[in-house]
């Protein structure tokens, strides 16, 4: 196991390098640049601006300088769009917000999703099953960009219970709607995966044996069925968690949370190379880390898996 983890960590560096180089090249090959606007800059001004940001250098030396700054100084450079700020500042400000609402949404999605899935599987083909399946399908087909405006309409305009957007670290009322909007579709997927996997496990031989031994159902579910049933759920949770904590453009857009999701999309549209690279690297690292974590949890849950 230890060797496995070491090996996985060792390939992080080449993986990240490939990610950086490919992203860098893709980004620069997109038409237009950070300073393309409807007012085309006179050549002398464009030259000054490009010199300031090092864009006048050949691409290869730009990549080298960039990697050097990131590795040795942990400096992701200045934003090309938000000119008063550096990428480090933008991530430092936005990522904690995204991390908070993402983690809470994740917990909600897992707790509700797994409970719903398990309940549906145990009471297979009962009204509870139909209800759970109905809820999860409904939640899945209702995209969050539709749900977000509806939430604000209901809770802000009609009921006046919650603020329509913004972010305060010490005021939970700002987080409720983002969490509902973000967790719903994940919750639905988790419920469906849990349900089908639970149904499969409940028909397995070891469960039949347990029932034959006369164990109480509650004990069978918690101790014998849940663990194997969660394996497919866990493989889904790794990437799901990363996508939740690295921000949702829809949540940031509709609830003005100030998270990094909107920055990421705007960076792509604005050709803000440095912000785009910074967030890409962050997402890349988190994805690698959580995939590793999922593999470790796998081995822990399923003794059949050996590394």
């Amino acid at each position: 196991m230890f060797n496995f983890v070491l090996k996985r960590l060792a390939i992080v560096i080449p993986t990240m390098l490939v990610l950086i180089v490919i992203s860098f090249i893709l980004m620069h090959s997109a038409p237009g640049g950070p300073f393309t606007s409807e007012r085309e800059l006179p050549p002398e001004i464009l030259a000054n601006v490009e010199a300031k940001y090092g864009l006048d250098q050949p691409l290869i030396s730009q990549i080298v300088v960039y990697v050097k700054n990131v590795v040795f100084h942990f400096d992701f450079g200045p934003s090309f769009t938000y000119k008063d700020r550096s990428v480090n500042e933008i991530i430092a400000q936005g990522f904690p917000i995204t991390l908070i609402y993402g983690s809470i949404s994740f917990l909600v999605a897992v707790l509700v999703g797994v409970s719903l899935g398990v309940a549906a599987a145990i009471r297979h083909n009962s009204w509870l099953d139909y209800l759970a399946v109905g809820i999860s399908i409904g939640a899945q087909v209702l995209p969050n960009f539709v749900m977000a405006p509806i939430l604000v309409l209901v809770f802000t305009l009609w009921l006046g219970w919650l603020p329509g957007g913004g972010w305060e670290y010490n005021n939970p009322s700002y987080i409720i709607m983002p969490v509902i909007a973000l967790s719903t579709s994940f919750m639905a997927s988790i419920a469906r995966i849990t349900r089908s996997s639970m149904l499969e496990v409940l028909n397995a031989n070891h469960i039949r044996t347990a029932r034959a031994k006369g164990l109480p159902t509650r004990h069978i579910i918690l101790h014998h069925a849940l663990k194997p049933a969660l394996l497919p759920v866990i493989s889904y949770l790794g990437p799901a968690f990363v996508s939740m904590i690295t921000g949702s453009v829809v949540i940031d857009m509709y609830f003005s949370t100030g998270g990094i999701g909107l920055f990421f999309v705007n960076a792509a549209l604005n050709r803000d190379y440095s912000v785009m690279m910074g967030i890409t690297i962050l997402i890349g690292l988190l994805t690698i880390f959580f995939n590793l974590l999922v593999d470790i949890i796998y081995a822990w849950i399923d003794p059949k898996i050996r590394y």
Partner: protein
Amino acid sequence: MKFNQLLPFALSASLAMPVIAAGTSPDGEPLAEDQTFTYRLLDDIKSFDPQINTDVEGSRIMRDLFEGLMNEDATGELIPGAATGYTVSDDKLTYTFSLRDAKWSNGDPVTANDFVFAWRRLVDPALASEYAWYMELMGVKNASAVVKGDAPLEDLGVRAIDDKTFEVTIDNALPYFASMTVHASVFPVNAAVIEKHGKDWTKPGNLVGNGAYVLTEYRSGEKVVRERNPLYWNNDKTIIDEAVALVINDENQALTRYLAGELDKTAIPAGQYPRLKEEYPDQAYSFPQSCSYIYWFNMTDKGPEALKDVRVRKALSYAINREVITDRILQGGQYQSYNFTHQKTAGFELNEPDYATWSQSERDAKAVELLKEAGYGPENPLKLTLNYNTDEAHKKIAIGVSQFWKKTLGVEIELANTEWKIHTTNLQNGDYEIGRYAWCGDYNEASTYLDLLTSYSGHNVAGFNNAEYDKLMADSKTMEDPNPNYTAAETMLAENMPFAPVYQYTKVVMLSPQLRNYPVDNLMQNVYTRDLYISAK
């Protein structure tokens, strides 16, 4: 002889009323307890540095944090700002501004040297401002040479005669030069503060300005808060205590939050104005905004052969039913456009081109005739591509126009939608046939539009090249009344049709019924928070 423009200002100052009684507005209206003005921002602010800022919303905040030489009043008329007034030399090339006694928000006096520093900073190749061209546009002596790095900063035509006198020398007489000092990129900055904090100088707490407000809170992607600056020279007359800009990307979401009472001002999404006007007649507004929406025709070598024929260009322009676009698609009181300059531009006398006075069926008939003359018809159908950038309204207009062209003229239009940066790059490289575009005036004068079509303009992507037009525009710079030249230029555009005018903008917004003094008559949308107030009811 120098003619003095200080007199009217001096008069109005002496007639000004004493400080307003607490709790009532200048009109005697009772004031609300809470003087906070909250409005929606589309996107995060890109910079709080006046010489770095490039966008309209940023400028709006700059006008609160800083103050330029001259300001605009609610109708867009020029009024004194950091300067009490100015004199112009006989050759009209030297402007001398007298500065008032004012302080920076840290207590330092505002001096002419602060302006010298800021104006040099704008063209400094080391700062590399994207708006350096603005100083070239103002024609300040040696601006271009400094930008190119061919002359030192000190050669820029600005100097401080003494602490309170700032002098600018320009290359050519420019009748509207003083009104250009209203622009945020020529606002003063405090050299000592920039020196001390370096690139962090614009952070709340560090930023020092000479405006009516100071930056107290900034949370990116979320909000910008400014609070009253007690050291501002006219603080006694300022009523709003706090201005809050909330970043709300989605305009429908912003509207919901406005209706929930979270905002005092927000934009009305396209097509919703009639409904809101009916439901909230005292809150839904549509007023002119200095922007003009056009479809460029690519007349360059890279463009299609057909568009080199003026008859084809005219036919296409005539066949656009602009009434449908303004009244059915946009529905926000926009103006049908048959020329380029926004018709509400100060001092601009719109001389409508002939085709503007015809009925649409007359225009259509003429269009069919012209296209036939040009050799296109059922046997030889004309096929063109219409490029636009991703946006609901652009899409609706493009679909509408392509239908007019198909039905009236039998022209086959392929719609090509790309995201903004790609669209802009294609236009600038000439890789398009017909391209959507909009130009917003930099200052309230017709040349901000008409200069675009000169052969030497970097924005003239149609490739319209007409020596006579260039001369008209060059001559207009030194004329006492340049209007005849502007009219002639517009006529020339209608005759050559390098683009099809589509519509001229209005600003369509919801304004809180308690909000007073919002400058609905200011074409440039130059809003100064200090002029507003919130009434008690």
